[in-house]
């Protein structure tokens, strides 16, 4: 019985880790673009800034690669006074637009989640049976 309880706790912990990892993964591209939007950054630099969001540092470079292939960021090599040459990333015009859209979506999403968590959400009752309920934050008094 004790073993089963321990197993359940462990499974629950694993599920929680997966869930947290998925949340981080979903928002990582936006955070990465936001970091680069502030100033040109190189890989290690970005990693330092996003350390809490990265499950592994190895996930950073594939993501940078993808964003570069999609035209959201651009890259150039530059000599460094304190070490080896670094590959710096900058945001392109497409990247700026993408980031703006992402931020709007993020605001909507977090507001809705926050409203549900704090019990301030209103659930629309005009949805058809079987459809997903629409949750909105109540307007502030």
């Amino acid at each position, binding site marked *: 019985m004790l073993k089963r309880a321990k197993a359940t706790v462990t499974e629950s912990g694993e599920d929680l880790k997966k869930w947290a990892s998925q949340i981080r993964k979903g928002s990582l591209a936006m955070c990465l673009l936001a970091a680069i939007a502030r100033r040109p950054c190189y890989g*290690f630099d970005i990693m330092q800034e996003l350390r809490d969001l990265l499950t*592994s540092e*190895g996930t950073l470079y*594939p993501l940078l690669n*993808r964003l570069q*292939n999609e035209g959201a960021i651009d890259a150039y090599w530059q000599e460094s006074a304190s*070490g*080896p040459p670094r*590959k710096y990333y900058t945001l392109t015009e497409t990247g700026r637009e993408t980031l703006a859209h992402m931020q709007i979506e993020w605001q909507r999403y977090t507001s809705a989640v926050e409203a549900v968590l704090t019990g301030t959400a209103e659930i629309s009752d005009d949805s058809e049976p079987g459809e997903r309920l629409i949750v909105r934050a109540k307007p502030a008094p």
Partner: protein
Amino acid sequence: MKGDLNVARVGDGEAGFEDYLAAVRAGLGPLGEGEREDIVRELATHLEEGLRRGEALDAVIARMGEPMVLASAMLQERLVTVERRRSPLEMLRILLAAVSKPFLITMVILVGLSTLNTWYLFTGVMRATDSWLLPLALYYLPAILVICLPMATLAVGLFGLPRLSSELSRGMFRSALPGLVAAILLGSLLPAGLGIVLNDTLLPAANRASVDFLREQLRQPGQDLPHPPRSIQELTRAEVQARLAEETAKRARLLASKANYTDVAQADEALRLITWLGALKVSVPALSFGMGALGLALGLFLTRFRPVRGLTVGLWIVTSSGVFALLQWGQVSGLPGVVAAWLPFGCTLVLAVVITLIDRLLPIRGDHAEAC
């Protein structure tokens, strides 16, 4: 590039550092050299940066994750984005490019062999030799090559010399061993199976032409032979029509050459060989086709059912099978045989050259290999 960081990499750490980068480099094999080195260089900078800040190499490497996992993720991201950005015209061009080089190599060799074969048949060399091995080898060598060459070139394109193959071929598989297995299966068994089935079902005209040619030869047994063997004449009148109706163009041609044999024992030996080949010919298509179907299923599974790769595989099969069928068509004896041997090969060679030229003239958009 390394600056004062070399101090941190002296000793055991340097081996680990280089080993890690070498493993990533190996995992990025399908990418172009420029792109691969750019990625490796950036990772090296990352590791060196960590060392410079006083972190242990093991810790930095552990945070980066397994080199093969990292390389695989880089490849995945790159392939997905490149495929997503391609226009239909570009996709078509890439599909053509994927088969052009192996196809061209195959066709050049086949045309050469076809020429040799034709020359061999119609210049009397066959009559000057007693060996049946040479004509048989000349007959089957193109068939063997048409199976092996696409397989070999595809395998090289996938794993060995990326620059010799097209970009799409390079990106078809991500891991070495399953990819190699799939390449062997897709590159050999399926074209072989389909080609043999096509040969046996769609080319009866070739057989009929060969039989007519043989009949003509056997009606004039004394033309080239001072003492035509009696058994051959009997075979001609009583049995040859029934037997040859079941024979393929290959066997018919061998029988035609047998009409010039001066030794009855030699002729009988040839007949036994022909019978054996007939039995083999019945069993090979079924086996090859079954294995080919298995190869297709496995290949699609290994390529994760990506549509572009699936189309490439499909085009590859059609091309290889078509070449195989054309090869068989070219085995008709007599003057029509010469024309039939040259015309399709000539046309396909021209097509291959055109495809290769298109491949050269239109660079792939979004390919960062050259840019880097």
